[in-house]
């Protein structure tokens, strides 16, 4: 069992947890994720390691309620435990040898982005951060990013805070004004990563994205997380989740994420007896 030692609501439906997992904390690096299971009936849910404290032996995860399983996780309280927690999974990312990096977060993407940004700063990199969200109250980790960024921009779809519009608008201005950007890291909804990558391609700036494909095991044994990168099939859980944004087939990923939409509604409704299922229940 993996105990939750702190819980904090960062925004409506976005919760931060600190979980005791000393052995995972020792090995965690930026880019890694873990998989949790709440109880015996639960799905295996991949979540980015948003921060880690090796001395205290804990890892931080930030979870957004989007469907049944994430809701179940967000309902856990301090003192509750996850039944299972496995990690660190995925390939970590290297944060050395960059001078100037733009970090672009879409909504919850700020969480997986944070450890990477922090590590870059630790290596002496200047960072410019853009936090985008639908509306002001969904902007998360603003103070954390403020602390480590040379410049911080906020953009909201409805203009309730910062620039009104999309993160790509702000990014375009930055790319116009700076010709010394080594790398753009973009993490957020698939569609946002797609548009960021299209934009940076025009400017010829290297771009890293982090994919949140559907996963089961997270160790390369099911192939459910397949993604086409540069024409080749990769497994996001072991070859990624970070990839070169200019090579990812985002349209395929957008389709694959919708695979289970109908099923998720059923799980949410808790009804028994899947449609078309021949298995009788007693």
């Amino acid at each position: 069992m993996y105990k939750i030692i702190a819980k904090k609501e960062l925004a409506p439906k976005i919760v931060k947890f600190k979980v005791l997992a000393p052995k995972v904390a020792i090995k965690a690096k930026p880019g890694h994720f873990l998989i949790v299971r709440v109880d015996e009936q639960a799905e295996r849910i991949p979540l980015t390691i948003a921060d880690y404290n090796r001395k205290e032996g804990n890892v931080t995860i930030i979870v957004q309620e989007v469907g049944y399983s994430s809701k179940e996780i967000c309902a856990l309280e301090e003192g509750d435990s996850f039944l299972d927690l496995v990690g660190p999974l995925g390939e970590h990312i290297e944060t050395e040898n960059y001078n100037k990096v733009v970090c672009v977060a879409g909504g919850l993407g700020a969480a997986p982005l944070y450890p990477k940004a922090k590590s870059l700063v630790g290596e002496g990199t200047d960072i410019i951060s853009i936090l985008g969200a639908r509306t002001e109250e969904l902007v998360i980790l603003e103070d954390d990013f403020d602390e480590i960024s040379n410049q911080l921009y906020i953009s909201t779809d409805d203009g309730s805070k910062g620039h009104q519009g999309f993160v790509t608008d702000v990014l375009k201005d930055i790319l116009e004004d700076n010709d010394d950007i080594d790398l753009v890291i973009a993490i957020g909804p698939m569609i946002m990563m797609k548009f960021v990558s299209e934009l940076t391609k025009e400017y010829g700036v290297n771009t890293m994205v982090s994919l949140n494909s559907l996963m089961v095991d997270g160790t390369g044994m099911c192939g459910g997380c397949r993604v086409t990168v540069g024409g080749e099939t990769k497994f996001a859980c072991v070859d990624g989740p970070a990839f070169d944004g200019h090579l990812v087939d985002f349209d395929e990923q957008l389709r694959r994420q919708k695979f289970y939409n109908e099923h998720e509604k059923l799980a949410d409704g808790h009804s028994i007896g899947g449609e078309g299922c021949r298995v009788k229940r007693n």
Partner: protein
Amino acid sequence: MSKETKKTKMPEQNPKERISNFDEVTLGYSAEDAINEAKRCLQCKNPLCMQGCPVEIDIPDFIALVAEGKFAEAAQKIKEKNNLPAICGRVCPQEEQCEQKCIVGIKNEPVAIGRLERFVADYVRDTEVIEGVMKQEKGKVAIVGAGPAGLTAAADLAKVGYQVTIFEAFHEAGGVLTYGIPEFRLPKEIVKDEVDKIKQLGVEIKLNHVIGKIKRVDELFEDGYDAVFVGTGAGLPRFLGLEGENLNGVYSANEFLTRVNLMKAYRFPEYKTPVYVGKRVAVIGAGNVAMDAARTALRLGAEESMIVYRRAREQMPARAEEIHHAEAEGIKFKLLNNPTKILGDENGFVTGMECIKMELGEPDDSGRRRPVPIEDSEWIMDVDTVIMAIGQSPNPILLKDSPEIETTDWGTILADDRTGKTSKEGVFAGGDTVTGAATVIQAMGAGKRAARAIDEYIQGSNK
């Protein structure tokens, strides 16, 4: 001795009924059936059957005890050598192992050794008590992977006095027994029960530990383990590289079966992991894995579930019994057909599969007649789900962090067949990760041989 020429029949669920449940298909012998079958054994002085059993079960002795109705003692006899008898009795390809060598089999049907083993193991399941744990003072051994290879090595080492820890990546032990082979062939309760008995021998199982990630092999030695056994299986799924292979509705058999078995998607939404099964399912391949996937799809509500295979019927690698069960349940066989393309709609869901017809040409290196495509014979199969069951390779996670462990071009670990010794000092390996996808009993045999070699290695280096 009885004069029966045929094996005593084992009752099974009616095919019409069983396709609407996940309960076990075969129902096992009664005590009377078992005694009758045991009496068919000739109690050979030189029992050839034993040569066919990789874990060296004393077959005539246990069968003699069954014939006398001494079932508990028969179980003891088996357990001296085999820690997973209820599992082996169900999934061992006996026709290629012990039963193939049985002398009775020359003229008649061989003695049903596997069915007897299953009967005995089931008979004592709830009554058996594991004798006190051995003192664990001979040394510490780390086992990576809780599949049949790792479990066997662990049990054998614990029995001779080692402190053994198994590290398993998943949240449950068992390997393919748990995530791959379906409930209707191998109930998970039985796997759990046999794993529990191995724990009672003093073996510790640490779940959710991916070696190569949470710890490297080298770090296990730093933690004080004297030897490491790698039994990580062959879990990496292969795909064909076809156009459309990443459409929604195309699965690897691993993903499909893991969702259903390990995550219990067949009880969705009580269990929260979904699985999508359309109305018409094509499974590519014709091994045991393919049969399991096709039969599982049927039980999940597919109207039609088909095996698509590029060779002919005689060349299907699955066990005869599994093909027979599949056929009885209504699985269709589209033989001499090779998929060339998977078709989808604008939302990215599978709508069909293009296949090309094949014919058998000249024999290839393996002596099997090679299938060759018939020109311009492409046709479109109307399916909405495609499951790839064309084989697996070893998972490279552990090896990535231990490049000193040498591998073959196929990605399998190079290990001595007799001892499991690898190129890295103190590291032994066995099972599918060495042989590529094989069988439960072969993996167990490898675990057993490695346990013996590890004992010798540690005792030798302690001197």
